[in-house]
């Protein structure tokens, strides 16, 4: 009952935002809330089910975003002609080097193995660079102002949601293989590192995703506002509702996204709930609560952790692709760990770790507060500083940076929940 009330209150907040601010604004928040909720679900699978502390959420979300580019962007045939072979060849070279290293590790032993590995790594690096560098240069010199990258497949962007999940799962497999055998602190630091590296790659490998030049030519998943305004059927529809066509088209677009995102959210929620209630879910919780006992019962803890880590990261990747879909552009420069990693953590903790409904509520609530705090921060600051001289430098400085109060607010919320209600708003049953 309490949970229904909590969700009803959340709904009320959206209605209030719609009435007093604007419906378009309220729907924008709602869409991002839906995406945040999916991300929070992914993190909850890792943390709530298995106790894995992943601080690389940003990287997996960015992989999802990159998937949107690679699926949807129009292919650039000139670039493929110039450097496609080279890129493919360096890919093959990379695989060959990895294969060679695996072979060395398997067949040789002792000192010889160590030196052979080192030589293979160093030699492989230069061999790959030999093929890779000219190819990259060729690709990036093709009309750099407009393309300068290989482009994507030109498929509808909605496919990228699945591809984003696969990308993130692949990334998670690599990270998990390296770091999951270690204790929680190392895993946290390793994931923090890998997410920074993923962002660095996306920012610098211009041939892949145009780097910081951004890709803003993605085709949206639903009709754009302009298309709707020119469509006769939509003009009729708007007339029926007695609405302004321009306002109505904006709201229609956002509503369409909301419907799509809700479908994804419900699907993932349903699957997560199923998994949680299955023998698999019970096993995961057993591992989380008493690792040694579970191991004694013959459960392969590291393997299960890897599995959960991959699944959770895939969900985050899906959410990342959804985010890029809604923005219809990919901007690697905007990925910031505070917003993409630690804010998601606040959502999971506040909502209630281990409970999927809690994560969803947390995702909604925290994103709502995050956005509204940006608006209300300056208002509050105005109130606090109202006694001061309006021209004083202190006041103008505080007013300028008031929007950052929300970071303070998030920290305070996290600390208070962690201290006084560590099980969150909707605790695990």
């Amino acid at each position, binding site marked *: 009952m309490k949970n229904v009330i909590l969700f009803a209150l959340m709904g009320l907040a959206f209605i209030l935002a719609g009435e007093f601010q604007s419906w378009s604004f309220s729907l924008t928040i709602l869409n991002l809330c839906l995406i945040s909720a999916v991300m929070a679900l992914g993190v909850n699978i890792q943390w709530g089910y298995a106790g894995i502390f992943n601080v690389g959420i940003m990287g997996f979300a960015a992989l999802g975003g990159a998937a949107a580019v690679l699926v949807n962007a129009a292919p650039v045939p000139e670039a493929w002609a110039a450097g496609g072979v080279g890129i493919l060849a360096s890919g093959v070279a990379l695989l060959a080097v990895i294969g060679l290293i695996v072979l060395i590790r398997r067949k040789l032993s002792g000192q010889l193995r160590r030196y052979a590995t080192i030589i293979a790594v160093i030699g492989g690096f230069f061999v790959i660079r030999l093929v890779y560098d000219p190819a990259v240069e060729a690709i990036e010199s093709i009309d750099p102002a407009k393309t300068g990258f290989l482009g994507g497949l030109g498929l509808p962007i909605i496919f990228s949601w699945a591809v984003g999940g696969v990308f993130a799962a692949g990334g998670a497999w690599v990270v998990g293989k390296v770091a999951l055998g270690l204790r929680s602190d190392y895993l946290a630091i390793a994931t923090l*590192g890998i997410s920074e590296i993923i962002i660095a790659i996306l920012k610098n490998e211009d041939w892949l995703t145009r780097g910081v030049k951004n890709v803003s030519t993605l085709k949206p998943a639903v009709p754009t506002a302009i298309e709707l305004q020119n469509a006769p059927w939509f003009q009729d529809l708007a007339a029926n509702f007695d609405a302004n066509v321009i306002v109505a088209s904006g709201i229609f677009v956002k509503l369409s996204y909301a419907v799509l995102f809700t479908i994804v959210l419900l699907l993932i929620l349903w699957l997560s709930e199923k998994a949680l209630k299955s023998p698999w879910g019970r096993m995961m919780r057993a591992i989380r609560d008493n690792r040694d006992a579970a191991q004694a019962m013959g459960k392969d803890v590291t393997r299960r952790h890897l599995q959960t880590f991959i699944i959770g990261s895939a969900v985050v990747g899906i959410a990342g692709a959804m985010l890029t879909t809604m923005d219809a552009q990919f901007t690697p420069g905007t990925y910031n*760990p505070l917003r993409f990693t630690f804010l998601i953590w606040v959502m999971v903790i506040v909502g209630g770790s281990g409970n999927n409904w809690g994560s969803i509520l947390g995702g909604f609530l925290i994103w709502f507060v995050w956005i509204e705090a940006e608006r209300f921060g300056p208002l509050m600051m105005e109130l606090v500083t109202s006694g001061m001289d309006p021209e004083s430098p202190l006041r103008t400085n505080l007013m*300028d*940076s008031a929007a950052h109060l929300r*970071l303070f607010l998030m*920290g305070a919320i996290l600390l208070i929940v962690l201290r006084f209600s560590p099980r969150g708003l909707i605790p695990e049953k």
Partner: protein
Amino acid sequence: MTDILNALALMSNYVFVPGLAYGSQLALGALGVTLIYSILRFSNFAHGDTMAFGAMLTILATWWLQSMGISAGPLPTALLALPIGIAGTVLFVIATDRMVYRYYRKVKAASIVTMMASVGVMFVMNGVVRVVIGPGEQRFADGERFIIKAREFKEMTGLAEGISIRTTQAITVLVTIIVVAMLFWFLQKSRTGKAMRAYADNEDLALLSGIDPDKVVLVAWIIAATLATIAGTLYGLDKSFKPFTYFQLLLPIFAAAIVGGIGNPLGAVAGGFIIAFSEMGFTYAYKRFVAYVTPGDWVPDGLLQLLSTDYKFAVSFVILVLVLLVRPTGIFRGKVL
């Protein structure tokens, strides 16, 4: 012969001198992380933002001193302001311990919960820093900019390549040597320092022999806050102050602490320099260096850069992973997390 000297000068100017300064900054940061880990037994995610907070207070104090017309002559005024910054940061950090961490110590919470709390503290400090000084870049270095300018060096030695040493770089190294020496003396010789080592080594035995845990924790926070402020200020003097870069320093700092062996102060210092020199070495473009050391006019085509500068995080990360795989205790046999 001159070619070799030129090559050496080139490397010193672009890799050795900046690496020494950067390594010192990382070493000071890693010392704070390692200290908190060995006494309070959690990885402090707020350490980067503690550095930012300390640097911010020092900058504000610097501006205040400057407005009163006080300066340190050829040295940066920030050195005079440093004690004020340290005092403020120590007070703030002790307040966070009282309000946040003490409770988790009392209930003997899992280290991961305390770590989560440190994420909360990180947010709060980040917010405070951005509200007070803003998210933008601040430069606050004043006084003499250079000890040796590249041009003077060239005139002095007649070489084609110059070495320039900035005042801030020299100060960074000097201050680090003093601080690290003091810290090691304190940990090895003083009564409180010995108590801290005993507590870090075996909490139960330390408690049995009458060591006051509250005092040990308090001193650990005071030292960590002092180190963080000094590290943050030196980094800001050497490069520039921007809140977000301090958050990003967290990764190399953790890498330094773990590579050296977490919980081991000597390891933290060594780790800081290992990470710094690797980052510098891997991202430096060796074109001119190779041109000097190879005979004749053979000049390579490319920049001969192993990795683009933007991948410096990858360097610390790869070293971290390698150490974790090959020797999880770190080079100096620290603890395993």
